């Protein structure tokens, strides 16, 4: 009798415990399902953010790579172009240096001296030139009263450097100086022949 009561009690306790455990498990399950459900939008948001960040990063890296490649290619092109322009320039300078000093050249020298005296505003001048042009300049100077040829020669492709006799003003009208003044325009002209800057 006593055993039977004890067994009933035990079975009741077991039953209650089982119920309580099952209820706890169920509630835990529901709770975790709810947490899971709640976290889905958050996870989705997080997922989207990671994707967006990844895309941003990829875009950034793509821009970096493309930008560097573009700049590198452009720089190489610039150097190649400059090389070509230099070659054209040096060939043209060679031709000028070796040009025939007869014929129109004396007219050019005359024009250069006239230009210089006009700019300096005086005819009292001393003219310097290179060894090659000395004779042409000497003969041209006879047309300019107050002008004298300097005994010093200068290093240039051609043309004259004109100085006022008091030494205060100088006008460089050598071919070198004229080329230097026009160099940017000449470079542009040469580059346009290569199809750049048209």
């Amino acid at each position: 009798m006593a055993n039977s009561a004890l067994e009933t009690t035990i079975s009741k306790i077991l039953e209650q415990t089982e119920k309580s455990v099952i209820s706890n498990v169920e509630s835990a399950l529901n709770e975790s399902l709810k947490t899971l459900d709640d976290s889905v939008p958050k996870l989705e948001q997080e997922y989207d953010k990671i994707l967006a960040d990844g895309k941003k990063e990829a875009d950034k890296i793509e821009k970096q790579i493309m930008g560097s490649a573009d700049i590198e290619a452009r720089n190489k092109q610039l150097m190649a172009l400059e090389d070509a322009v230099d070659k054209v320039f040096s060939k043209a300078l060679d031709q000028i240096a070796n040009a025939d000093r007869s014929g129109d050249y004396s007219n050019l020298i005359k024009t250069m001296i006239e230009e210089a005296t006009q700019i300096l505003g005086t005819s009292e001048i001393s003219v310097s030139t290179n060894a090659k042009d000395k004779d042409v300049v000497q003969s041209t100077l006879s047309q300019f009263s107050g002008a004298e040829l300097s005994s010093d020669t200068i290093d240039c492709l051609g043309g004259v450097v004109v100085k006022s006799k008091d030494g205060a003003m100088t006008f460089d009208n050598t071919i070198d100086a004229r080329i230097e003044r026009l160099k940017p325009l000449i470079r542009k002209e040469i580059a346009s022949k290569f199809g750049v800057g048209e």
Partner: protein
Amino acid sequence: MTAEGGVQYSKIAEIKGPLVIVDDVENAAFDELVEVETKDGERRLGKVLEVGNGKAIVQVFEGTTGLSIAATNAKFVGKVMEMPVSREVLGRVFDGLGRPKDGLPDPIADKFIDINGEPMNPEQREYPKDFIQTGVSVIDGMITLVRGQKLPIFSGSGMSHNLLAAQIARQASVIGTQDDFAVVFAAIGVQYSEAEYFRRSLEESGALKRSVLFLNTADDPAIERIITPRVALTVAEYLAFELGMHVLVILTDMTNYAEALREISAAREEVPGRKGYPGYLYTDLSTIYERAGKLNGKKGSVTQVPILSMPSDDITHPIPDLTGYITEGQIVLGRDLFRQGVYPPVNILMSLSRLMKDGIGEGSTRADHGEISNQVYDAYSRAQEVRALAGIVGKAGLTEIDLKYMDVGDVFENEFLSQATDENRTIEETLGILWKIVSKLPKNEITKIKDKYVEQYYKEE
């Protein structure tokens, strides 16, 4: 301008600071370019500041160190200083006088333009109203930059203005249009390390190909700084009004420019104005700042962000003071925020973009932009008051709503204001953070936003 240039004068009367006074000069013209030749044959550039009585005062950009009266010649070139321009200048690095500094040859010029620029006809100006996205939340969200605007950054010595300048240069873009965008960056009297940072930063981000850099470092002659902003703006104007690009010009640091101007003024023995700056500082600054804008019938625009460091953080100093009169608002960096480690340390309560209202809203950014910005401005202002109150009565003495405002202040500084130097936020992201801040407040505190936007974006926490 002289009818014929190229005369070289050898009578130097005086060398005084950055100035050379040449005697017996005929036919020189104001602003004419001068090549000063030293006894070693070295050539330095300068320009005529004054002519008269047979004398010409020449300002030598590269300084007069090493020049002697006896062995110096000055050649008057017969033209003003010009900058060779073409599309090829994009991606190039120049010095403060516009000479290549990247080891590459001179760009093949499409045009040679007077660096002093041509004044914009006021009647031809078009009102700026298009948004520029800098990717920096505080600027895009609350001090919006508009195409054609001049919006200076007022900073202080040692603060992070150069980081911010580089970040804006890397990230700035125009949205909603396929028009080309370019950045012209002029560093004026910056340290070598800073100049290298700017160059590297643009190179590594791939932004160099759409940028032009002019770098005048602190060890370059101070007088060169007078020219740097002008060559930069000449290039910007060409890109904008000839090639139809939207150009953002960043000039840092304009204080160094003003110092150079003061140096010349002192050498010319002019009557000094406030703090020794010349009386014409305002006029001179305007010749730079006013070279921003949009023109009727032209596609491009020039937007300027000049940066200046305020001596002793003094906003009443002549440089920021006069700048503020000319420009359309200002972005002020705060020392307190900087000390807290906030980057960018923008003090929004002292900052303002006068043209913001025209560059935001539906069709530009988002319809709620203006209202959410005003609400956050208001909330942050209240947060500052509450912080001050908490300093006296302690947190325990604050009401619940006060505590919410304090929270708003913290979130504003930590999540909205603070940003990594390589973090490029879209305007949508920026507005999202602004709504997050406002959502810290109860709905009844939101008084500046229409209900429909509150319904749409408010997420109570």
